[in-house]
């Protein structure tokens, strides 16, 4: 089929526009990456865009990894991600299975009760007072238990469970399986793509979460990485990290520590992302269309 001049003009501009958009999205990360491995003195003097590192130096990474706050933050975040996501998957699977079975009488009222919380809830202060009354304030539990599941993800998982052929469940039940066996031995293994999506969604939200830690935690030793990062990036207090650095070098390296910290906090997510990307498009699709 021959394309008219107008069409070719549109196709050409569209390609250019899409490439521009990709550049605008990627460049900030490229900038941060390049600046983090460049010579700190050069980064501070440098004006404008950069395209390649100047004077290779890993000093800022060394300071980041020597810093006790960052290391405990990293450890805490790993703990919150692993424990939190495990609980999320367990709770969401139980709820999604129970609410995906046709025969359960109280299914719809329970579903309504859960979905209603997506649109109306007690809000910040009553929830804070509850956490306080439960004695979870300033404890690791506050970052794991109150976010044990999300209604949105429950809907995604329930929809996926509904698509598993009912005959498999029936034959397992004829063999004497109960609902727990059906869920863990049949439904979950057959729903691995959606489990992968859930791990990505929940895992990323735990990894990136900072607001709950800000309101519920007081003790610095419990802080997740994002709160430490907030101190470095937003409140600009890199001084505590540079105890071993001499006066004149402080300013430049304070700048590159920020970039190194961004890279260190972001790379794990970006490594996970390509492996799970093929699944999550499906997940978003199911969730939003049926939700």
């Amino acid at each position: 089929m021959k394309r008219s001049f107008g069409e070719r003009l549109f196709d050409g501009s569209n390609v250019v526009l899409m490439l521009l958009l990709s550049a605008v999205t990627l460049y900030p990360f490229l900038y941060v990456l390049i600046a983090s491995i460049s010579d700190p003195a050069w980064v501070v003097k440098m004006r404008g865009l950069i395209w390649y590192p100047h004077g290779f130096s890993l000093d800022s990474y060394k300071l980041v990894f020597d810093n006790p706050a960052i290391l405990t933050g990293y450890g805490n975040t790993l703990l919150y991600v692993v424990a939190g996501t495990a609980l999320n998957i367990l709770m969401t699977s139980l709820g999604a299975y129970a609410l995906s079975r046709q025969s359960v009488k109280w299914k719809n009222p329970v579903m309504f009760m859960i979905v209603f919380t997506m649109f109306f809830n007690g809000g910040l202060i009553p929830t804070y007072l509850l956490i306080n009354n439960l004695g979870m304030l300033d404890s690791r539990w506050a970052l794991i238990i109150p976010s044990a599941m999300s209604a949105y993800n429950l809907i995604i998982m329930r929809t996926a469970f509904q698509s598993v052929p009912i005959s498999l469940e029936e034959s397992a039940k004829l063999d004497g399986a109960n609902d727990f066996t059906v869920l863990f031995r049949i439904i979950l293994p057959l729903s691995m793509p959606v489990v992968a999506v859930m791990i990505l969604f929940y895992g990323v939200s735990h990894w990136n979460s900072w607001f709950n830690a800000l309101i519920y935690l007081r003790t610095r030793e419990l802080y997740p990485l994002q709160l430490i990062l907030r101190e470095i990036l937003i409140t600009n207090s890199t001084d505590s990290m540079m105890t071993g650095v001499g006066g004149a070098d402080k300013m430049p390296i304070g700048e590159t520590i920020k970039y190194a910290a961004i890279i260190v906090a972001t790379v794990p997510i970006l490594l996970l992302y390509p492996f799970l990307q093929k699944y999550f498009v499906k997940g978003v699709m199911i969730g939003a269309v049926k939700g």
Partner: protein
Amino acid sequence: MSLMLKQRSAAEKPAVDKNGWKYGTLRDLRINKYIYIMLVPVVAYYVLFYYVPMYGLQIAFKDYSPGLGMWGSDWVGFRYFNDFFNSYYFWRLLRNTLLLSFYELLFGFPASIILALLLNELRSSRLKRFVQTVTYMPHFISLVVVAGMLVDFLARDGLINNVLSWFGAEPVAFLRESGWFRTIFISSNVWQSVGWGSIIYLSAMSGIDPSLYEASRVDGASRWRQTLSVTLPGIMPTVVILLILQIGHFMSVGTDKILLLYNSSTYETADVIGTFVYRKGILESNFSYSSAVGLFNALINFTLLVLANAISRRTSENKLW
């Protein structure tokens, strides 16, 4: 074995059956006992962490003091609501919340649709995949990192000012100027969410029957015409549902991102109800006042959602419930 079969078929019957409510419930509990055991932790979680705080909202009408507790504190009626409505902050907070939400709806919402339409028109599927992969990525970056990059790039001696200075512009401390806050907030939101938002529209587009395109081509429709007459109507139900959902979050616009980005010199345009609740409640421990403000916000939000759903129901048959 035959017993199992019988139970199964009994369970398949509709929940409210002719045998009467009580008998049905008991039988349901017996047949589905494992399922109800599974539901116990789930329901307990939602009751404890969502419904107990809703009940706790009563402190908005009480003079809550931690010593007396929720029960012992005295009722004060609408005093805290009146205090808020009459305070200097009320109109500023309302204006900022509504404006940021409105601009988000005006620029952020259509951006994903436009990106999806443009991606759909790309002829090279490799380029399409590449652009998608790249534009999804910022969705996975933490708000702290995004805000940190903004603080760095928008500083007086930061990247943006350096680039602008090539064109002779004077350096601006963007994040200290209240006039710039909305622009920065909205454009960085679009940057972070446009790709992710387009996923759902692209999948809606892939669900459109290809014969519709063929038929419109036979009728001589141009690609622009096909977009208007086939693609857009095809994704319209998705657009409407997402619009209703977005309106359901109208009053809770980006509180945690604003907390990272604002400072006292930009309160004029940046302070929203959500950030005010955080400052008054968590930082200053004005629990009752702060709960009242939060409840006011939640009620407006919920009303908007119900209205949007009702309007959409009447006009387009698309609805959340």
